[in-house]
């Protein structure tokens, strides 16, 4: 039996226009925060370049909204380079973004660990270097569902990317140097781990069919944000059992200090309602309490998605004083917004 969300039923005009038209919409909705350079296909902070501030550039395939374009603004990213859906952007976009946000203090590239993203950002950093712009790159690779070994391309960058962009953005806004901002960013990646599960597949507009088949009563454990397969497929179980397994997968790898303060991030993959995300959060809080851990900060919602996939991911970040302070700092972007 097919699930209703698996059929191609989308608000689009033409598959090939989705990315650009969505970007135009983002710009039209938030002209006070961002400007859209449609020719280069980049989203740039309205007041970029900010003189003397380290610029933050991220990017990757589209289809994960609000990441990354929705995180451009005060206290987070200076620019985002969206590629085609689930396809890495090209170095030209990254170079244009890097030039647009270079305020003289250097530029940080935030790269999720996927082969295409890594290769294209590497070429872009070389091009920026040719232009005399100082670039540092940080890689996110927090998905514990992938074994980090010689046998894989390494762990995928997922939920930690959102937290890293917020925290490193705050560090840059506070006047951190390029080295300092990069160091904080790497600390976030080192101290964060994620795990995702899927109930349905996503459907890319170009393909028009589900990326993978999954039965009406099945769940994919360890799914990636492009519908990559996970560790295994199971019969759907109560939320308590699913969250227990997700939490265990993360904590056994993260191994936080006893009594550690955590940032708990429950993320929807696009097709799961908030009411279910809070059911997950409730189970997660119980799991953490049982282990003597405390979530002193939280984030719940759809922030790094996989089109219309029903599913969720949990990210846990072991905080310290500075990371907590930077998380709390003001942020004003289309998708994440708070004041102190």
């Amino acid at each position, binding site marked *: 039996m097919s699930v209703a969300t698996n059929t191609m039923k989308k608000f689009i005009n033409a598959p090939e226009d989705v990315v650009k038209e969505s970007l135009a919409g983002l710009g039209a909705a938030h002209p006070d925060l961002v400007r859209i350079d449609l020719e280069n296909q980049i989203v740039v902070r309205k007041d970029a370049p900010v003189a003397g501030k380290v610029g933050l550039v991220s990017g990757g*395939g589209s289809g994960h909204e609000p990441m990354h374009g929705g995180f451009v603004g005060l206290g987070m990213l200076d620019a985002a380079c969206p590629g085609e859906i689930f*396809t890495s952007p*090209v*170095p030209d976009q990254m170079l244009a973004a890097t030039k647009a946000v270079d305020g003289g203090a250097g530029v940080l590239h935030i790269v999720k660990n996927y*082969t295409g993203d890594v*290769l294209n950002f*590497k070429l872009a950093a070389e091009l920026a270097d040719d232009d005399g712009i100082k670039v540092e790159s940080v890689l996110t690779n927090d998905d514990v569902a992938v*074994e980090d070994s010689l046998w*894989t391309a390494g762990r995928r960058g997922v939920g930690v990317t959102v937290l890293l962009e917020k925290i490193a953005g705050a560090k840059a806004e506070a006047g951190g140097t390029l080295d300092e901002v990069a160091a904080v960013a790497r600390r976030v990646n080192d101290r964060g781990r994620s795990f995702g599960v899927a109930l349905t597949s996503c459907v890319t507009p170009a393909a028009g069919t589900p990326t993978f088949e999954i039965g009406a009563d099945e769940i994919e454990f360890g799914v990636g944000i492009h519908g990559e397969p996970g560790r295994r497929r199971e019969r759907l179980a109560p939320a308590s059992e699913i969250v227990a397994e997700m939490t265990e997968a993360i904590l056994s790898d993260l191994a936080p200090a006893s009594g550690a303060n955590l940032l708990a991030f429950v993320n929807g993959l696009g097709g799961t309602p908030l009411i279910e995300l809070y059911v997950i959060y409730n189970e997660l809080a119980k799991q953490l309490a049982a282990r003597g851990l405390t979530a002193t900060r939280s984030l719940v919602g759809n922030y790094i998605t996989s089109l219309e996939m029903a599913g969720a991911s949990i990210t846990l970040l072991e905080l310290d004083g500075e990371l907590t302070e930077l998380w709390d700092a003001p942020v004003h972007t289309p998708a994440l917004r708070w004041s102190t």
Partner: protein
Amino acid sequence: MEYLIGVDAATVRRWLEGSAAVLHEQRDYLTQLDAAIGDADHGTNMDRGFSSVVEKLAELDGSEPPGRILVTAGSTLVSTVGGASGPLWGTALRRAGRALGDEATFEGAALAAAFQAALDGVVELGAAQPGDKTMVDALEPAVRALKERLDAGAPTAEALASAREAADEGMQSTVPLQATKGRASYLGERSIGHQDPGATSTALILRALELAVATEQ
């Protein structure tokens, strides 16, 4: 009677146009191969990239030497493809073009050197070795066969035919391999039994080169 004929700019253009044609023709096949173990965009990406190369070549004034044409083609792929194949094929063609320099024609040792430079560029950027189930599994044996045949004194066209055969065999050799690079590696053992799309497009591009040179001679 065989005598040495250099590969010139017109042949290189014919090769790139032939590559674009075969990649367009085989787009859905490549995408199907990619859907099985990757993210179902290889055919679309390669078709988009090589179509852009053909458009870009039409803008050149016709006086460019082969090396310059390859650098332009490589840069165009980097700028239009995205994913992993754009930087990898882009780097391959750019390195080959740079190795050729500004000579109007090339053959033998220069051809072998250009191919070696292309392979080195791909290996350096992608960090893949033979057996990783990538385009290197087609390209590396092709370069090896090309050099062996040229060293043995074979004419260019024959050496390229051997290179293409080696690429085809290399492509087929990816079927039983387990992927350890790129998105296919997330599948682990489940990647076994599928032909690698990158090795497949590489074999197609080498076949286009064989045809372009054969047409010339």
